[in-house]
């Protein structure tokens, strides 16, 4: 599982930085390094681009795992340099941006867009498999998520736009319900295709503000 990210255009980053002159850049040694969006090389590239526009680079670092709390003893040097900057740019997913923002007192800005939680389907190709909706129905659908894989998030698909295993919106998109059908057929469980899946409780999904889970509270 990886947090899939993509670099924001330089113009957008510059707009976010505004009048901030001194910039510190943070990369991440995990997903963004593997994806080539926020590793050592990309941090250096962004630093060079910003210098060309007249910004001053106070320093750069690539944290091993930006979304994990930074060990206290590792903070000193990083913080000292970061605090001198007018703004800290973070080349990680949004979780990393939040972590860095917690320990830096100045503005912390994202240099990447966080796209989705994806699985590498073939080398270099990541596909979203889970929307983290809070109420898993993989048990009914052969282990393939219709909410994520069907562009209309149908529970009782496939719709009339499924042709030759492809979705009508884009031939690069596989029909999620064809995948489910094929898998259930292989499992000898096509009877599950006849079940009317009732309307869903979306309150466990993203309709109610930030979701929380406590290991300490009784269910």
């Amino acid at each position, binding site marked *: 599982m990886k947090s899939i990210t993509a670099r924001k255009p330089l113009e957008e980053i510059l707009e976010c930085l505004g009048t901030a002159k001194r910039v510190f850049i943070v990369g991440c040694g995990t997903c963004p390094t593997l994806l080539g969006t926020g590793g050592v090389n990309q941090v250096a590239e962004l630093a060079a681009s910003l210098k060309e526009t007249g910004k001053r680079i106070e320093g750069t670092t690539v944290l091993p795992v930006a979304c994990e709390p930074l060990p206290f003893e590792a903070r000193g040097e990083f913080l000292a340099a970061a605090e001198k900057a007018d703004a800290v740019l973070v080349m990680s997913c949004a979780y990393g941006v939040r972590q860095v923002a917690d320990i830096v007192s100045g503005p912390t800005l994202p240099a990447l867009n966080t796209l989705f939680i994806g699985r590498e389907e073939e080398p270099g190709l990541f596909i979203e498999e889970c929307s983290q909706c809070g109420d898993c129905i993989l048990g009914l659908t052969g282990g393939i998520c219709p909410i994520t894989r069907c562009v209309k998030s149908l529970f009782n698909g496939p719709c009339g*736009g499924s042709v030759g295993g492809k979705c009508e919106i884009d031939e690069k998109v596989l029909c999620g319900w064809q995948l489910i059908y094929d898998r259930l057929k292989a499992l000898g469980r096509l009877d599950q295709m006849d079940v009317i899946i009732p309307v869903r409780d979306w309150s466990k999904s993203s309709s109610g503000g930030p979701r929380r889970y406590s290991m300490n509270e009784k269910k």
Partner: protein
Amino acid sequence: MKAGTNLEKVLKAGNFAVTAEIGPPKGGSAKVIESKGEELRHSADAFNVTDNQTAVVRMSSLAACAILRRMGLDPVMQMLCRDRNRIMLQSDICGAVALGIGNLLCLTGDHVKFGNHPESKVVFDIDSVQLIATVKAMRDGGKFISGEEIAGPIPMFIGAVENPYADPFEYRTARLDKKVKAGADFIQTQAVYDVPKFSQWMDEICAAGIDERTHILAGIIPVKAVGMARYMRDYVSGVEIPDWMIKRLEKSKDVKEEGIQIILEIIEEIKLIPGVHGIHIQAVGWEEIVPEIVERAGLLPRPML
């Protein structure tokens, strides 16, 4: 009677039904709906109004249906799951009942990617099968999805759509059965051009006894130009146009007449297929041809019930 609409009466009496589609304008003119309604008044039993079809913003189906109802016509309100959550869907169903609309066609809806606002956020809170079940529960159980009681009856004749040409083809009968079990009283299909394939699908429907539990109306889209046929073949999702048809149109000197002739031949073949209870003509943007097609197909006068 579930809703007592003209469409329901015509089908219940065993007539071969004719429904026709009326596309609402990209604006607020009631006159557009009124003149199309007047033009088609005697040619069909009920009139579908599309709901922001292909994700292009138009006058709402609810408003256009209310205008048709005011004219004494029997509207079929199309309702998509793309743009409304369950609160708005149920609210509009109550509103439709208040305005005398008694036929409701439940669809999932084309993806916004195809329309004129491809940047929109899609809703898809519930899907078409769930919408069918919702309307049935509102009508027969008197309850909203929440389980709360509805004040007063919701008489709705419930429709659904099916595309006999989509994949997986071997699942299409079971998929229709799901819609019928959820509560679909009538079905309007995607446009039929490949009659043998449609007939094969209908054989399966009849073998499963589904035709006895619902009314199936075959979709008809008249083609007036070779370019239109090619465009539909290549770009309109779910439509299959056989090569022989395009060749016939290409060879013809009067393409419009040839297109009508092809459609009349298809209607003749469809009439003979067991289990088909009518046709649904979608001549969007060419509504004025409907009276001629219905007349030449020998389907006039429409029954007065």
